[in-house]
């Protein structure tokens, strides 16, 4: 019975709201995942547009949030990529905002966490790496692959270094996607487990009724930590995107 009451995986279930016609043997459907993705897009756009609606010289609360949000990413992109990297600003801003909003929406009770599905995070990560490759090859041609051949390395260990560099480059999308996925998944599972302890102890009655305060406190503290992690992972995703793009723009370093 206990094993059934704490079902930490149930929250990641994808529900179908209505299905779309199959294409190429794959079934497409409008799911809760799709709903929360669109909700995140809507919330981001709404906040930014509503925040700038009044175009006040002295910003109000919403406008301050909008401007802080904008300038935070702008500063980050400018710091890592320099002035020529500002054309990637919309991309980095979209990635950061999408991940951040998806994480924060997922923190609401009963809400679905889009970023806790490996397909979403892996797709975003692979997209970033493909953009890095495309930009690098477009800007530097074959010189881009000097990224894997560091200068000043003795010739007899160069193959090993190059191999390591290639592996490290190929592991980037894996680590980028899995980090976000793992953090979100683990955080939500741990939250669910501690909340489940509360429910179990209260249900058992007696001492457990009062002892439930401990897992409850733990759940509250973990919620705060998860909000921090939700922000931090979005930030890390965005800044690693910047760092990888920097490799594409300046492969010599």
């Amino acid at each position, binding site marked *: *019975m206990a094993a*059934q*009451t704490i*079902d930490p*995986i*149930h929250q*990641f*279930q*994808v*529900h*179908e709201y209505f299905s*779309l016609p199959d294409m190429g043997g*794959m*079934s*497409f*459907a*409008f*799911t809760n*995942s*799709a709903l929360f*993705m*669109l909700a*995140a*897009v809507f919330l*981001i*756009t709404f906040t*930014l*547009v509503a*925040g*700038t609606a009044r*175009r006040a*010289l002295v910003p109000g609360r919403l*406008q301050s949030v*909008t*401007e802080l949000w*904008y*300038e935070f990413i702008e500063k980050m992109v400018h710091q890592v990529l320099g002035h020529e990297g500002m054309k990637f*600003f*919309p*991309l980095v*801003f*979209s990635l950061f*905002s*999408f991940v951040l909003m998806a994480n924060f929406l997922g923190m609401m009770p009963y809400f679905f966490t889009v970023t*806790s*599905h*490996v*397909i*979403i995070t892996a*797709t*975003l990560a692979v997209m970033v790496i493909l953009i890095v490759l495309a930009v690098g090859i477009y800007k530097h041609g074959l010189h881009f692959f000097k990224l894997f051949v560091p200068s000043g390395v003795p010739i007899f260990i160069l193959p090993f270094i190059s191999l390591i560099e290639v592996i490290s480059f190929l592991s980037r999308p894996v680590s980028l996607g899995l980090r976000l*996925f793992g953090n979100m*998944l683990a955080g939500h599972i741990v939250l669910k487990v501690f909340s489940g302890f509360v*429910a179990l102890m209260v*249900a058992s009655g007696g001492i457990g009724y009062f002892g439930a305060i401990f897992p409850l406190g733990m759940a509250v503290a973990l919620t705060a930590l998860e909000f921090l992690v939700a922000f931090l992972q979005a930030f890390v995703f965005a800044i690693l995107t910047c760092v990888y793009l920097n490799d594409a723009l300046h492969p010599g370093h």
Partner: protein
Amino acid sequence: MSNMATTTETTATTEAEGGHGSAFPPLDASTFPSQLLWLAIAFGLLYILMSRVALPRVAAVLEARRGRISGDLARAKALRDETQAVIADYEAKIAEARKQASGIAQGARDTVTAQIDSERAAIEQKLAKQVADAEARITASKQKALADITSVAETAAQDIVASLTGGKVSAADAAKAVADAAKG
């Protein structure tokens, strides 16, 4: 016991809805196509909305603020420059007026001094003339008196000699004797 009833209900719905077969939803490949499709739609929409609509708006607001601030600063600087120019102008005028005033005062002083000097010179000249006249008159009277004294002394010498010796002394001798005596 109502608690238990709800949990059984939840698990029941879970089993009913989790019809995909896999126990671990994040790795359930049957949901991948629809998730990918909606991710592409959502992220593409977000990127277009951000790059076309939202970010230019925020940038415009920030740019307007920066422009306004730098404009205000420039206007403040212009106003300050203007004020300083007015102050400099005012000070120049004050200095000029002061110079003019001091010139007028100097002129008046010079005129008065010149007048005083000329008047004083005239009076002094007049006085000097009077003094000179007086001195001339005194000298004349003195010489006249001296001449009178000589003639009186000669006459007196002739008379004294005549009364003492009964002899006669010529006027020339008497005059010679008086002159010697006056000299000695």
